[in-house]
């Protein structure tokens, strides 16, 4: 009998159908992959399962019994555990308080900590129960989420895009834990993802959703990545940028330009204690330079410096040979730097303003008619899909939000474009589109700096790679000379 069954589950938001008659069977002892692009209905489905949304039609059965799920507590009582895409942890609280949040009854501090130790040991998820969650790395935070779920002994564990902020090693570790759990404890795991390589490598069965419908199901070993890609996107995906996006293989970089041009952006001795310890980096026009490194080695802080959110303790940023007065808000922008920040919700867009307003935010003149014209032009040029330019940006998919940011930044004709973790949360189609835009941007002579933790992305897209480790540039090379092994060593701080 299936551990969890969905029959004809439907949900619509106004005129948009998020889930359309979805049937799904999750068996105990399997890792079931739920694959789909952003907006395919995966997350809606899971929110329904957790009582965070009410379904319009359909039945949910747990071990064959129809159940009613009115809220997260009901889901927990039914043995459904969920690890959320955007972490549901509370930063200022210590690990152990986060873990017991949602329980009832008296707080038993010592018992809770002992239990965390026990669960951590059993699944190989080392964590300090007293650590403040806000100080942990993405990988550690995910461990906390997992422990929080697992201690309730769920029969079905659902992970929503669990690797989107993890490094490769952390992802591998996560899948090993999941595999052990499924093997030895007969739990059912649902892995929601849009990363094909991950689904292909880690799951037993796979279901593909497209526009709210189940379009394909198969045992994972009877299918392959190309088939899954086709089913997910609904058309053939060619190799090249797309393949890199899918994590299949690194694309070959385009013809090397041997001209050693003067850098468009030069960073010298950037220090932000304790995150950056003297970063030197050149970004040349017409090239895409990759800044690769494991999460938490200073790249986020560097992105904040280049966004003008942090004034560095020391060091200079030169654009076209002229040092920028970093203490002045907007100086970097005026000097010709465009940035697509890592966390677009935090620093890239205003979610509740209209699409048009977000597009022309940096325009100094507020002439409605002209703004509309400009916004319209940008929306067309960048293929932004929106119900209306007046709709709040919140209503757009992640890929379209990212395009809005990119369109706005490029419309100022920057000399340097910095993009940080641009494909986080994007589906294959959107990432593909973004990559080709970055390429054409570089062809037009813009100096592009790509800050990324995805090795395929860096290898597939850049001309030159700098590796950041512990807030320093550990090494730099032409992408043609780079190998995964060499990069790995630099990331680990082994080689120079």
């Amino acid at each position, binding site marked *: 009998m299936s551990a969890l069954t969905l029959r004809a589950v439907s949900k619509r938001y106004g005129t948009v159908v998020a889930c359309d008659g979805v049937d799904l069977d999750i068996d105990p002892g399997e890792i079931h992959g739920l694959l789909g692009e952003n907006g395919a209905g995966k997350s809606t489905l899971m929110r329904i399962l957790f009582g*965070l949304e009410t379904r319009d039609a359909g039945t949910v059965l747990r071990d064959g019994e129809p159940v009613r799920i009115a*809220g*997260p*507590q009901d889901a*927990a009582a039914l043995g459904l555990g969920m690890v*959320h895409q955007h*972490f*549901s*942890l*509370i*930063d*200022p*609280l210590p690990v152990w*308080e986060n873990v*017991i*949040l*949602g*329980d*009832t*009854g*008296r*707080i038993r501090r010592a018992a809770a900590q002992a239990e965390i130790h026990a669960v951590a040991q059993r699944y190989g998820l080392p964590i300090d129960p007293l650590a403040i969650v806000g100080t942990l790395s993405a990988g550690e935070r995910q461990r906390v989420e997992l422990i929080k779920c697992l201690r309730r002994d769920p029969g079905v564990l659902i992970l929503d895009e669990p690797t989107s902020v993890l490094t490769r090693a952390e992802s591998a570790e996560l899948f090993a834990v999941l595999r052990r759990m499924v093997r030895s404890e007969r739990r059912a795991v649902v892995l929601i993802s849009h990363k094909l390589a991950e689904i292909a490598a880690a799951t037993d069965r796979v279901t593909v959703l497209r526009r709210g419908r189940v379009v394909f199901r198969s045992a994972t070993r009877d299918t392959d990545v190309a088939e899954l890609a086709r089913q997910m996107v609904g058309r053939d995906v060619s190799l090249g940028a797309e393949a890199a996006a899918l994590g299949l293989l690194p694309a070959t970089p385009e013809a090397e330009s041997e001209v050693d041009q003067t850098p468009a952006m030069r960073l010298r001795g950037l220090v932000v204690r304790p995150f950056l310890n003297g970063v030197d980096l050149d970004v040349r026009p017409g090239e895409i330079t990759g800044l690769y490194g494991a999460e938490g080695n200073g790249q986020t802080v560097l992105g904040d410096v280049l966004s003008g959110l942090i004034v560095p303790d020391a060091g200079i940023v030169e654009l076209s040979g002229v040092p920028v007065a970093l203490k002045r808000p907007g100086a970097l922008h005026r000097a010709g730097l465009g940035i697509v920040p890592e966390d677009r919700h935090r620093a890239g867009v205003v979610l509740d303003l209209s699409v048009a307003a977000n597009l022309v935010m940096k325009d100094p003149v507020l002439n409605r008619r002209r703004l509309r014209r400009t916004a319209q032009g940008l929306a067309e040029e960048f293929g932004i899909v929106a119900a209306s330019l007046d709709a709040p940006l919140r209503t757009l998919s992640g890929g379209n939000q990212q395009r809005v940011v990119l369109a706005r930044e490029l419309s100022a004709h920057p000399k340097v474009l910095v993009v940080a973790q641009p494909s986080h949360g994007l589906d294959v189609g959107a990432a593909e589109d973004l990559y080709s835009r970055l390429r054409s941007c570089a062809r037009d002579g813009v100096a592009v700096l790509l800050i990324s933790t995805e090795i395929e992305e860096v290898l597939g897209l850049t001309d030159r790679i700098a590796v950041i480790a512990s807030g320093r540039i550990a090494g730099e090379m032409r992408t043609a000379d780079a190998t995964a092994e060499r990069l790995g060593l630099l990331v680990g701080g082994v080689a120079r």
Partner: protein
Amino acid sequence: MSLAGDIETVLSSGVRLAAPLAFAACGEYLAERAGTLNISVEAMMLGAAFGAVAVAGLTGSGIAGLLAGVLIGALIGLVHGVLAHGLAVNTFVVGLVLNALVLGLTSYLIATAAPLSRPPERWPLYSLLAIVPLTWWLVGRSRWGLELRAAGENPQAAAMTGIRVNLRRRQALLWCGALSGLGGAYLAVGEVGSFNQNMTAGRGYLVIAAVIFGGWRLARTLVGCALFGLADALRLALPALGVTLNSQLLISAPYLLALLAMLLFASRHNQPQALGRPFPRGGA
């Protein structure tokens, strides 16, 4: 009078003037940890002061007066909670309206609260010895407090784990109302023995300042209350000690001190991250 005697007078009146602040601060601290920046603490104190004198006068019982104060404070907390969390009206607007409303109402009804004939009763002061540790335990050690803090720091995440954020916030406001009411009632019945128009005179705002000064930690918040209480006592004592200063300037001294203390010592490090941000139903 000797210098030692003077100091003793100032200190003891400082403690008594700090007590109403300390009661209310225990409440405001808890409400703010749950994410409500509750400025209607002024209304709670003033309304309770009025109610306490009126009821104590009617019944002849100080305890009845105090209880009336607690109830009135809690009632104002309930109204604030329903408006701000149930109907998602901006919490500052709610607070300002309540403050103005209570000031107007108590001024209008002032004749019903005649000065008490009995001497002030100071014994409720000692209940602070129980209320302070209780507040500390509730916030820091109880399940309820953990859920409050979660609601104040990250209501979305709290709701994901099944906590009813707005319910917890309303409960926190009730606690705040009850304690602020106790503070106001103590001021009227325990110290002054009568009700005067606008007798709290911004003490509620001093309480908010104390919580900010305390960096959202209980012990430091109470230090803030003591500081402001002492300043108040000094202000009252200075003329008697023969120091003449502009009286308007003197009256504003505690508030100036509050401003200065916040500027110099406050740290936002511990500020609840969702303080003052409403959590819409079903919001994520």
